[in-house]
């Protein structure tokens, strides 16, 4: 019977056309740092960098705005990647032992990444185990016609490029063994091929390093061993010196050796020098070494690993050595790979300009030309998750004034630097400049709020606000690790900002609200702290006013069993220019704040927890209202979520580093043929106890029914149809809505008169589902403008003639009630129809691609199944539906935020936002071009 509702919608072709002009779903760009990176490659000719991930994704980056993404068909770890220099081609090796060739393709002025072909090394004989043909290293020749493939079995195969056809000139160990002196043989195999390096001067010669330590200079033309280097230490990596007169090998004992190459001595027994930097005690292996000559003096040696096993075996380090200069970069996450940006042309020296290190959780770039080797902030790959993200907040169309003030505050903080010396600058960004400035605010577990420039394709950090400094916490925030490091050997230097260790979980940010016109910010946290901050361009040293609001309101029989409140610091605190805390409102009990809102024109903030909600006048610093929403039988509300988490002492933290496991990103593609489904079902039959779900309507005394889910301020008609005035609305988890009429004194009398709140209406939704959002619509059915927008002529004044209505979105249905009587006008029962529940809603203005002037307001809703529905308002007619997030990705769904113009963000991993667009007009996607010269196009060879 309810199916008709939808059928009727689709009939009007004119409406369909309008819908096409308004709505379109696109996943546009991924912001942040790729989750679980596993491989790195760099093309010095095109100046492009590629990062491969464990989920099989390849991401190519050039100059800011230049980005391509490719995804392998199989979800397998990308273990190695190599650019075919200058050709716009990438070779990737997956851990399923397949080789893939990718090409940057040109499509209508902009470039994209496509897979061209793939290859698997065939087994030579039946007897040979598959592990023997397992690829260990790849070497594409610089002239890009040949690929050498080293295997676990010790063989080297050669493939023609770019067709990936196996050439019949494989080199096996027995051939090498013939030239190896008997005393070195000892009847043992040489082990897997560990390294393949092309001779920098003679393209026909390659250096082959075997795991056992033997290094061979092999001539491809003559198929002859030129030189033998009888290394006795297990080999990790090899690197040529630019001239080709010597090379460096790194070893599992933490040392590296320099070998000289001369045609006169075909067999070298000993290296020129052998160094174990962090000896004499046993050290870990040096996984990779780079040797770069410099015009200014001695060569730079850069290697990862090699730390003394006992004392610093757990550190993730990279060492840079040049003459007496020695720095041990100490990272907080594992080093995946690194490369240098240096001269590759006919120049005499390498003269490296930058070191690029890919870590498991961030990308660090070191300026090697500036003394002291400072870090260069990256214009992309922002480490969003440097502390775990706890909430996100988006502000569209930021006024220039606020933007400039935030940017300048950020510049003084040093978190915003110019990217003039960014070394990776291939490609051209063709995307037009963003029409408006957009801010993304992320709240973090460590009590910081980070401001990001979300206007364009790359998310840039602008400013960082810390709220921890106004509280006394268990630990001091100036980490003593770096200070102590100076006297230590090795000369550690902490680099990077990824810090997975939370000092005090109570500092975590739960809700953010910013008034973009007045620069007032409200930040609320896990321990019931609600902080009001003003944006100031001057440094300040002041006391913070603290007010405590009891949300239990003398309700008997409740004792809070959760965490304590955060004690505020006594005395004045120094604040840098930027957002400076002014008032701290502490909710009691100190449960996590679940909703917060701000009306800067009325100087009011409203906040809610699982116990109730409060209204506070931050101008007069006086509480206006506190209301308990707790149900008498609710016992769960009295336990904070952190009650069982003991705050760890710092010493403990250092000894037992609590590594937060990265959530495996969900890029698994589910193929569901009927066969598989049936097989799956057959398995299910065998199971004894299937999952059961109880069918029972919600009752009033369900636990956590008092949680305040949303708060909203509106100037509307609550008491009667003729007088409008300030109102405040609150919705709870059990479907209750409270509406208060506020008596706000005029601007001039703010200081003398106090704000008063009178309960106007209480609405109990029959279905008792949690109220997700409340919004008031004006007489034309449009959402009310934000504070200041009307008084500053920034928005059209709302229609106060026609009757207002309130849109209440619960988890199950949307309803529009007429005001002031609160009589139901329209509704849409989403759950009853579709079986999905509302997770996030937003009122969005969609503008048409066909006409600049035409726009419609819509209600956008993300459900627990990860699909997005758009409804018209106030008629609540379904418009479009798109699948957006996998329904299993609960944190993705929970993190979703919508912008006011029809875009959205959600976390696809702890470190990445996926940006998507619902609007046909407002789309932020990478548009870029890379120019290259590709001699043999794959289309010709195939």
């Amino acid at each position, binding site marked *: 019977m309810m199916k008709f509702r939808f059928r009727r919608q689709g009939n009007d072709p004119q409406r369909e056309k309008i819908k096409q002009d308004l709505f379109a779903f696109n996943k546009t760009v991924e912001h942040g740092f790729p989750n679980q990176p596993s491989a790195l490659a760099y093309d010095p000719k095109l100046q492009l960098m590629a990062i491969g991930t464990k989920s099989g994704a390849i991401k190519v980056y050039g100059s800011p705005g230049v980005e391509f993404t490719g995804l392998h068909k199989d979800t397998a770890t990308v273990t190695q990647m190599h650019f075919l220099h200058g050709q716009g081609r990438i070779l990737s090796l997956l851990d399923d032992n397949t080789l893939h060739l990718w090409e940057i393709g040109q499509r209508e002025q902009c470039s994209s990444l496509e897979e061209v072909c793939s290859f698997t090394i065939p087994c030579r004989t039946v007897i040979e185990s598959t592990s023997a043909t397992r690829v260990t290293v790849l070497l594409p020749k610089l002239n890009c016609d040949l690929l050498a493939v080293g295997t676990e079995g010790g063989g080297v195969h050669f493939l023609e490029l770019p067709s990936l056809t196996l050439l019949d000139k494989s080199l096996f160990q027995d051939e090498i063994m013939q030239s190896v002196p008997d005393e070195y043989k000892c009847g043992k195999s040489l082990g897997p091929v560990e390294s393949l390096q092309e001779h920098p001067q003679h393209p026909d010669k390659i250096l082959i390093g075997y795991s056992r330590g033997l290094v061979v200079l092999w001539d491809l033309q003559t198929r002859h061993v030129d030189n033998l280097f009888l290394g006795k230490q297990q080999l990790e990596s090899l690197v040529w010196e630019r001239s080709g007169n010597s090379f460096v090998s790194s070893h599992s004992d933490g040392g590296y050796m320099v070998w000289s190459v001369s045609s006169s001595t075909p067999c070298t027994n000993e290296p020129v020098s052998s160094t174990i930097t962090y000896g004499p005690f046993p050290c870990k292996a040096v996984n990779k070494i780079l040797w770069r000559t410099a015009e200014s003096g001695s060569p730079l040696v850069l290697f990862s690993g090699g730390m003394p096993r006992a004392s610093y075996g757990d550190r993730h380090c990279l060492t840079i050595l040049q003459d007496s200069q020695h720095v041990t970069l100490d990272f907080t996450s594992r080093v995946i790979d690194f490369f240098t940006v240096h001269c590759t042309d006919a120049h005499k020296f390498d003269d490296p300009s930058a070191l690029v290190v890919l870590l498991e959780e961030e990308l660090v770039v070191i300026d090697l030309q500036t003394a002291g080797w400072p870090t260069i902030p990256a214009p992309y790959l922002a480490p969003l998750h440097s502390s775990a993200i706890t909430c996100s907040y988006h502000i569209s169309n930021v006024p220039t004034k606020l933007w400039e003030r935030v940017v300048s505050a950020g510049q003084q903080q040093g978190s915003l630097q110019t990217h003039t010396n960014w070394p990776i600058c291939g490609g051209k960004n063709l995307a037009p400049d963003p029409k408006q400035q957009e801010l993304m605010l992320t709240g973090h577990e460590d009590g910081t709020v980070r401001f990001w420039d979300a206007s364009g394709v790359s998310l840039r950090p602008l400013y960082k606000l810390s709220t921890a400094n106004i509280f006394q916490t268990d630990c001091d925030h100036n980490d003593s690790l770096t200070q102590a490091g100076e006297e230590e050997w090795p000369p550690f230097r902490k680099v990077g900002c990824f810090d997975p260790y939370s000092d005090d979980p109570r500092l975590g940010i739960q809700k953010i609200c910013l008034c973009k016109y007045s620069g007032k910010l409200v930040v609320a946290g896990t321990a019931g702290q609600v902080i009001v901050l003003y944006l100031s361009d001057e440094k300040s040293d002041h006391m913070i006013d603290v007010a405590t609001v009891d949300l239990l309101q003398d309700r008997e029989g409740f004792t809070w069993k959760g965490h304590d409140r955060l004690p505020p610091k006594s005395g004045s605190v120094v604040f840098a220019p930027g957002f400076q805390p002014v008032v701290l409102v502490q909710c009691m009990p100190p449960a996590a704040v679940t909703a917060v809102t701000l009306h800067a024109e009325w100087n009011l903030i409203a906040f809610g927890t699982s116990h109730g909600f409060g209204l506070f006048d931050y101008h007069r610093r006086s509480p206006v209202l506190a209301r308990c929403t707790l149900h008498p039988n609710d016992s769960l509300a009295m336990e904070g979520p952190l009650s069982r988490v003991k705050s760890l002492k710092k010493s403990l933290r250092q000894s037992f580093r609590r590594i937060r496991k990265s959530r495996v990103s969900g890029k698994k593609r589910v193929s569901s043929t009927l066969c598989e489904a049936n097989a799956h079902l057959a398995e299910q039959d065998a199971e004894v106890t299937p999952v059961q779900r109880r069918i029972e309507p919600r009752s009033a005394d369900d636990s956590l029914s008092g949680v305040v889910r949303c708060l909203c301020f509106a100037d509307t008609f609550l008491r009667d149809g003729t007088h409008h005035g300030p109102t405040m609305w609150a919705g709870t988890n059990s*479907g209750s809505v409270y509406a208060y009429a506020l008596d706000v004194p005029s601007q001039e009398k703010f200081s003398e008169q106090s704000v008063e709140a009178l309960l106007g209406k209480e609405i109990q939704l029959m279905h008792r589902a949690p109220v997700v959002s409340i919004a008031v619509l004006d007489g034309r059915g449009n959402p009310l403008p934000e504070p200041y927008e009307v008084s500053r002529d920034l928005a059209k004044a709302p229609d106060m003639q026609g009757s207002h209505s309130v849109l209440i979105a619960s988890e199950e249905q949307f309803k529009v009630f007429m005001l002031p009587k609160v009589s139901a006008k329209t509704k849409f029962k989403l759950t009853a129809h579709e079986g999905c529940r509302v997770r996030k809603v937003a009122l969005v203005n969609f503008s048409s691609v066909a006409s600049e002037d035409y726009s419609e307001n819509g209600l956008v809703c993300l459900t627990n199944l990860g699909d997005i529905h758009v409804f018209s308002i106030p008629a609540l007619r379904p418009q479009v539906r798109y699948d957006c997030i996998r329904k299993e990705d609960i944190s993705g769904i929970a993190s979703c935020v919508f912008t006011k113009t029809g875009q959205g963000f959600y976390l696809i991993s702890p470190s990445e936002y996926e940006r998507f667009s619902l609007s046909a007009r407002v789309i932020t996607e990478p548009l870029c071009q890379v120019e290259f010269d590709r001699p043999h196009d794959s289309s010709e060879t195939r």
Partner: protein
Amino acid sequence: MNRSFNKSQPLRPLELDAVEVKSKYGAEFRRFSVNRVKPGKFEEFFKLIMHIHRIANMEVMIGYADVHGDLLPINNDENFSKAVSTAHPLLRIFIQRQEEVDYSNFGTNTLTRKKKAVVPLRNDLNRKRPHIRIGMPQDFRPVSSIIDVDILPESHRRVRLYRHGSDKPLGFYIRDGTSVRVTPHGLEKVPGIFISRMVPGGLAESTGLLAVNDEVLEVNGIEVSGKTLDQVTDMMIANSHNLIVTVKPVNQRNNVVRSSRISGSSGQSSDSSGSGSFPAITHSPSTATVSHSYAHDDLDSDEESDIVIESSVSRPSRRSNTSHVHLQTSSATPSPPSPPTRPQSRPPSVISTASFHSQPSLNGTAHNSLSYRLHRDLNLQQPHYHSTSTRESNGSLHKILSSLRTDPRNSLALPPGGVEEDGMVITL
């Protein structure tokens, strides 16, 4: 002697076609006779009784003792003729003042006081309630019904569960499972949703219309195939105040045999007879059929008003209930003293009767007992309704209900400016 002769004399010729009547009003007895073959109209009989007992200006109920000794009401031609025809040898009439009527006595064996134990099909539950009380029809409200018998395949059953104001849990669980379907490729196993458990004493169990391992096919008209267990759970919960589940019963023996339209309802009544032994919600077949017509009504109507009907039907009673609860919990005002059970149970029965009128096709004579029960329903409900409505504090409720009575079709939509259809509003 003469007297006795005179008295007995006229009786003798009537031996074959006259029934002796002993009518008792309070402590007074009257004896007279009526014609067994042509008892006449109930109205005439009623006037006769009034006259004989000299009752005036008083609402009275007339009851008789049937062959089993049960007190049954006489209030229409049908049951009057039944009473006369079954009287043997004497028709015992009991007159009670309307106010004093103890409805719970009707239909039970209170007259004979045999204390015959009820057939204890569900021992445990019956033991707690040794004495069955069967309410008067106006105290009945639909709890469940089988609907759309005429449009569904015989192997399917569409069950409607009414949960207005009942404090009984819906009381069932669902699970994932495998169902076998006939497809063009032969038999195929497909995922399905099944009822996995019944909560003892819950609404679902007590109706007897749903059973463990019944496959759930639709929820409120929406197919569940392709939906996950969680989705179906959410759909059912979202529809919980008026849940319509279409199931494929695991036990296909009780299926409705659709030989004729009306036997459909009798088939269903025999089906629900399993629950007949369960006293708390015992339903005469009439209840089920009435709600059938009622449900049918809104399924056929425009889907927009369908939602309104559902809510306005369930709403008034619920509202008084929720507001009651709400005041207790959130604003700590003393709760209104009116007992919530009575007004709750009343409106639906009123509406059922009303919609019965709108479905004349069902008012067929083929099903005698059905129509007569409905008549009784209608007649009894009226005076009773008036007496309760004055007691009813909620004026708007009264308005809605009376408007429903006058014209059920039109007034099912919300009266403008009336109470909202969903959710209650307290204006303070």
